[in-house]
């Protein structure tokens, strides 16, 4: 068969067009799942910006949180005012020039920014911490008071750990801030009050001179607190996990613009999204996917209003998206409580089983126990910082089961904090009883939040065996 020159040109043209169309389709599909850019819709905006998306302040707070967690583990076991002051500067001051302590460049995972100010200036965490009283700890402290109390304790603890009383401050501070700042600000502020008709309307700028409307920016700020990369909405749980852990394989996934550096503002994963992804990795849940989709759908809806005030129907739809975000975020926290209650149970089992002469083994198990307890306690308090109070007596039961401190191997447990900030201890009913409490915490998370990923499930063997024996309803006689 012989093709003429004209036919060959025609054939090549058709082929090229087909390839170009395919590439356009792929790129369109990819951009469909990117949070931004969204055009400026604000009526009367005369500035030069073409993108209305902005959540730099939230990412700066993620970085402050990550850095604070690192600093909390720097103590040498003696009172250290300098360290305390440094930690407070990351928590409550708005100082310029604060270095990013975490996340930093790790091997081939190169991070673009080195200073918090390169993301956003004059940001702190204390101003955004849940102001209600924390009933899961003594003395009716507010959220900021509790974090400040822990910062003080962390600064004088050895690597942030008080092994006598059983507190791991980096974990307590970090996990609590995940709820008291990120979750609370997103679901109780930006996705709640600021979605009302009167607050931050869509036909006015969020603040004077801004390129975004009230509703656009409220929504973006909530998105920022979730902490997922803007282009990572369609990534699998596993891919997101690789980014959060700064794995070399995660770098190519995270580096969306291909500049060889990870922009913390747009390309990095932070704690709330990381935990959602870690549960989604099991394929039993879709928390991260649900949250990301709801954020994207909500933002599209706001953009589609073209800078006009949102109708009741539009706001009602927006509230539906907000409800999806809130529900899935709450479940993520409940999954974390479930997971660490299981870890604590396993640690206690190891402590119980280790012999008196196996000091190293026991010490290792105790270290893990204190760490996991800190994560459990932090997440359980976070779960209580949402928009609405937990139904029924859930919070009371959760706080009573976990207590103010872990039950130590000698059965002692912190039961109060005196006026000087010293822990008051008493004898508890023992670690076996406390193990039962952990099982009850897991059961509570199943009953109240219907958690599905169920990592470290200590009741799983019961469940599996029940399934194995099959259906009991039968009319078989003898």
């Amino acid at each position, binding site marked *: 068969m012989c093709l003429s020159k004209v036919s060959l040109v025609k054939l090549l043209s058709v082929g090229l067009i087909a390839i170009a169309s395919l590439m356009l389709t792929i790129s369109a599909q990819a951009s469909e799942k990117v949070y931004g850019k969204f055009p400026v819709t604000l009526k009367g905006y005369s500035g030069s910006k073409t993108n209305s998306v902005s959540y730099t302040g939230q990412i700066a707070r993620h970085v402050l949180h990550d850095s604070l967690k690192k600093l909390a583990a720097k103590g040498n076991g003696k009172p250290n005012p300098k360290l305390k002051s440094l930690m407070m500067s990351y928590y409550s001051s708005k100082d310029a020039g604060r270095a990013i302590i975490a996340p930093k460049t790790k091997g081939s995972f190169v991070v673009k920014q080195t200073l918090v100010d390169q993301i956003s200036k004059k940001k702190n965490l204390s101003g955004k911490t849940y102001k209600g009283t924390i009933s899961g700890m003594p003395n009716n402290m507010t959220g900021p008071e509790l974090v400040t109390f822990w910062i003080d304790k962390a600064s004088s603890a050895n690597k942030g750990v008080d092994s006598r009383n059983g507190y791991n401050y980096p974990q307590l501070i970090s996990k609590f801030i995940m709820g008291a700042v990120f979750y609370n600000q997103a679901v109780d502020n930006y996705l709640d009050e600021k979605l009302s008709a009167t607050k931050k309307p869509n036909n006015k700028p969020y603040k004077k001179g801004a390129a975004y409307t009230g509703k656009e920016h409220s929504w973006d700020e909530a998105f920022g607190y979730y902490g997922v990369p803007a282009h990572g909405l369609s990534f699998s749980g596993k891919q997101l996990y690789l980014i959060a852990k700064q794995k070399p394989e995660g770098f190519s996934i995270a580096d969306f613009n291909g500049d060889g550096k990870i922009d913390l503002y747009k390309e990095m994963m932070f704690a709330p999204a990381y935990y959602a992804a870690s549960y989604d990795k099991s394929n039993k849940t879709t928390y991260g996917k649900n949250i990301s989709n709801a954020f994207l759908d909500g933002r599209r809806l706001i953009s589609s209003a073209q800078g006009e005030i949102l109708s009741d129907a539009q706001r009602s739809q927006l509230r539906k998206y907000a409800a999806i975000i809130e529900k899935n975020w709450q479940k993520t926290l409940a999954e974390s409580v479930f997971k660490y209650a299981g870890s604590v149970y396993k640690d206690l089992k190891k402590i119980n089983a280790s012999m008196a002469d196996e000091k190293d083994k026991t010490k290792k198990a105790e270290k893990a126990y204190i760490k996991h307890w800190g994560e459990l306690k932090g997440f359980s308090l976070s779960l209580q910082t949402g928009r609405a109070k937990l139904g029924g007596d859930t919070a009371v039961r959760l706080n009573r089961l976990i207590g103010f401190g872990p039950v130590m191997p000698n059965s002692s447990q912190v039961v109060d904090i005196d006026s000087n900030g010293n822990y008051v201890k008493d004898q508890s009913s023992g670690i076996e009883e406390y193990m039962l409490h952990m099982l009850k915490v897991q059961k509570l998370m199943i009953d109240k939040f219907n958690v599905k990923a169920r990592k470290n499930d200590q009741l799983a063997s*019961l469940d599996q065996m029940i399934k194995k024996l099959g259906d009991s309803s039968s009319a078989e006689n003898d």
Partner: protein
Amino acid sequence: MIVDWFYHEYLQHLIESLVDPKKRVSFGYLIFAAMIGLAWSAFMSRHSWRYGLSQGIRKLFGKRVLFSQSARADYKLLLLNHGFLLLVAPFFLSKVALTTSLFFLLHEVLPSGSAYFSSMPFWTVSVIYTLFLFVLDDFSRYVVHAALHRIPFLWAFHKIHHTAETLSPLTVYRTHPIEAVVFSFRSIIVQASCIALFVFIFGEKVDLVTIYGVNVLLFVFNLSGSNLRHSHIPISYGRILERIFISPAQHQIHHSIMRCHHGKNFGAALSVWDYLFGSLHLSEKNTHLTFGIKNRSKRGSHNLFTLYVQPFVEASREVKILFRKLEEIKKDIINVT
């Protein structure tokens, strides 16, 4: 909606239960039972094996057995009860809830006993668990079965099963719905207690030894012709073995109308319970058995309405008698004091 339920729930579940090796009356077991029954008839026949085989075929598949009025009632009850159980099962006590509650209760009562034997090898724990579950399940069947015979209120319902005059494997489903509920509760309680206890003592290592997903012991019991207990083939195990395992012939004695056979052989797989509690009756050679209930009006004994309603009438009568007796006792106490 009803049509949808019928196809997707009822029919599907019914077909599944016929192939599910966890159910006694599934095809595989039935085929094995038929082979055992025919082999027994052929080789134990006092005449030629051919004659024995033909007798076996007649006893298992004969028109008078499979299409008798009694057997037809069995089939109808099977089909109706199946639907009834599907509808009421969601309201049963949750096995998960009961297991978890018992597990927590054990932790509270014996806090230091948790996972006490967790260092024991996996296979040992699994063997103990499988055996324990089988024995406990069988014992509970004995207790419930004996109670169904000895408590007049319960007997009113269990009697339905004993009105069968011809026995086929499907007679196992000739049950009043109330009795089916009793049996379901028994199963839930036994399984929940067993699981909770074993996970509490042995930790996460507990697993069931299974064949095709069925407890290996139950599988062997069903494969070895358990279905022949409801048949007209009197397989016996001999005087020693029949004190340990219930033979089909022994269960047929349980269905006999002869007075001396009443209240005997309540066991399901094991006869040790009957042996221990004095209700054992060994099989007898050359005894012709008639099945059913004596003095019961023939008319209506296989009528569905009667089978479903009559037990309620009799049970309410029993309750009245009980109350009357209680009143009399109360009066006697008052008179004495």
